């Protein structure tokens, strides 16, 4: 016992900086900086209710961000999460509102639909060898169409708090007297912990990281690459399903034809958070922070009086800047490695 303790966890001795990763610290600082900036500029931003709003509007993006981190780490991408989210919410909501299904069943339908589309993506990419970009572009178009087809083009008003089935909205926000608790944040934190654990300490995560690092080598190590590729996309799909629930719970109604663009926020957040575009590296905490940058910009810019159209420009510029800064940093850090690799 004692001997083992002596030899083992080197990792335990690592400083917190190392464990969190340099990038995460930088992103965290940016989050704090943005928050401070908006608070300084706009007094209204400083309120608790604003924080609540930011959290509210961040849940669904955070969820798809966490989900899409997995395909990104395998070196792929999942574009179908945005339109998919709306599609699942429409299907689930249609069942609840027009078919009288109980809300919990509708929620399960959301997640299930997500899992099915995720599975479809996984099969197209893992087994049929389609380019991830293309395969998910197709499912993106398909989910956009399917959601509308299913709901007959109708917008779906999920039950409100107070009406029958409205309890599901309290999953994300609980009002005790006058105090509003952002319960959703708790779930997000729990999910982040859970998914971080899965990514770093279980076979699923390890193999997904390995596939992103070197797919062929992973295959030759006897890992069922197809299976774990599929799992990555199923995770992404399931999280899009969870995001569908979050979206339905926060916003009054869900309308078909929307949802395109969410995937960019999720993927953009993940990449700002340090997921490598070529796969193999990334962290869930990083994604969470990256998504937060986007959400703060989205919610914060209206507060300093900017019209909506400026937000789009600024978000675009921030994304490019983040990636260029990251590329430069990587170039400095890994020059020796790339030359080492050239020799192989």
């Amino acid at each position: 016992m004692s001997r083992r303790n002596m030899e083992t966890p080197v990792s335990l001795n690592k400083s917190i900086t190392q464990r969190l990763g340099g990038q995460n610290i930088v992103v965290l600082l940016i989050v704090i900086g943005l928050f401070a900036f908006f608070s300084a500029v706009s007094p209204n931003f400083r309120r608790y209710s604003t924080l609540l709003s930011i959290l509210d509007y961040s849940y669904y993006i955070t969820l798809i961000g966490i989900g899409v981190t997995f395909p990104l780490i395998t070196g792929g991408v999942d574009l179908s999460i945005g339109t998919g989210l709306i599609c699942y919410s429409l299907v689930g909501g249609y069942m609840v509102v027009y078919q009288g299904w109980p809300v919990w069943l509708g929620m399960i339908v959301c997640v299930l639909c997500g899992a099915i589309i995720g599975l479809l993506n996984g099969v197209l990419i893992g087994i049929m060898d389609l380019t991830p970009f293309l395969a998910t572009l197709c499912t993106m178009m398909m989910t956009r169409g399917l959601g509308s087809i299913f709901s007959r083009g109708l917008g779906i008003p999920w039950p409100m708090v107070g009406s029958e089935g409205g309890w599901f909205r309290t999953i994300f926000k609980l009002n005790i007297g006058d105090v509003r608790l952002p319960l959703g944040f708790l779930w997000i934190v729990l999910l982040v912990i859970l998914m971080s654990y899965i990514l770093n300490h279980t076979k699923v995560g390890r193999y997904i990281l390995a596939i992103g690092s070197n797919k062929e080598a992973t295959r030759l190590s006897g890992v069922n690459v197809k299976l774990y590729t599929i799992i990555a996309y199923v995770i992404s799909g399931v999280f899009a399903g969870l995001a569908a629930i979050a979206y339905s719970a926060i916003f009054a109604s869900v309308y078909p034809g929307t949802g395109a663009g969410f995937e960019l926020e999720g993927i953009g957040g993940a990449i700002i958070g340090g997921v490598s575009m070529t796969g193999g590296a990334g962290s869930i905490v990083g994604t969470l922070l990256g998504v937060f940058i986007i959400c703060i910009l989205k919610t914060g810019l209206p507060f300093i009086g900017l019209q909506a159209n400026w937000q789009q420009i600024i978000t675009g510029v921030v994304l490019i800047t983040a990636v260029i800064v990251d590329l430069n940093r990587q170039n400095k850090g890994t020059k020796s490695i790339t030359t080492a690799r050239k020799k192989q």
Partner: protein
Amino acid sequence: MYQIKQNPVVKKLGFNRIVLSMVLIAMYCFFAIFAKNFVSYNRILSALNYAYFLGFLALGVTFVIATGGIDFSIGPVMFCAAIMSGYLLTHYNWPLWICLIASIAIGALFGTFNGYLVAYKNVPPFITSMAIMQISKGVASVFTKAQSVSWPQLAHENGWYRNLIRVRVGNMYFPVGLVILLITAIICAIVLNKTKMGRYFLTLGSNKEALRLSGVRVRKWQMLAYTICGLLAGVAAIFFVAAYTTVQPGYGDQYNNEAIAGCVMGGTSMAGGLASIGGTFIGGMIISILQEGILAIGLNKNYQLVITGIIVIVAVYLDVLSRKRRV
């Protein structure tokens, strides 16, 4: 099967393109049988309205995909070009021809910016497109104060640009746009297959580093592919307004998907290095006929999206299979 593929005529035309044309014809026949009043000249004209701008977008993105990149900001860029030049026309009373050039220039500008980031800053094309998409939407919206822009009608002053898609000859319409699209496609095909630029694009898509070490200034050419793509998005903008006159800021995403789908359907490989302009042209037509036919049998646009998705999956999968067999 093999024998058919080796037939010199088939080889010349390209097996995939022949299959694709047959799909197009089969689709037309299908709708002719199942949709009421489908077979008419007006239907074809109506389908062509959609095919014009989609065709230009798809032709443009073919160049980028040939270099192994991707540009899915083309839809919003097209809208941005149409909105800004339209605003110059309607609010600042610029001459029409300058506005048309402005539209193309705006497209080319966004394309160049995109290409600059990809080629000189090494930002993955996927990310730059994402950002450019946001920026182009925002710019258009800021420029017009979030207003939609309506280009003038044919009968009005400055309305002649609408003749670019069709001209009334007696009682019939002559589809000028089709002629222009065809000529553009032929030029694109020549550029891609017969000129230095096209050769470099394709080589770049297959092995960028090898081309660089052959003493070719790859960054310049890589950027140029995006410029051409943006330029054609600017042209597409003209044909969009010629068909539909009105454009709104903040939209256009779905046309990316359809343009890329048309391009990939036509046999251009996402991995770069393989591209077929003819295939892209037919792919764009397939999507347009599908769109028209779906409406004609009483379904809506959503079915078109789903079916397009499925067609692309099948087309790409068959391509994956044939490549596997070869290697």
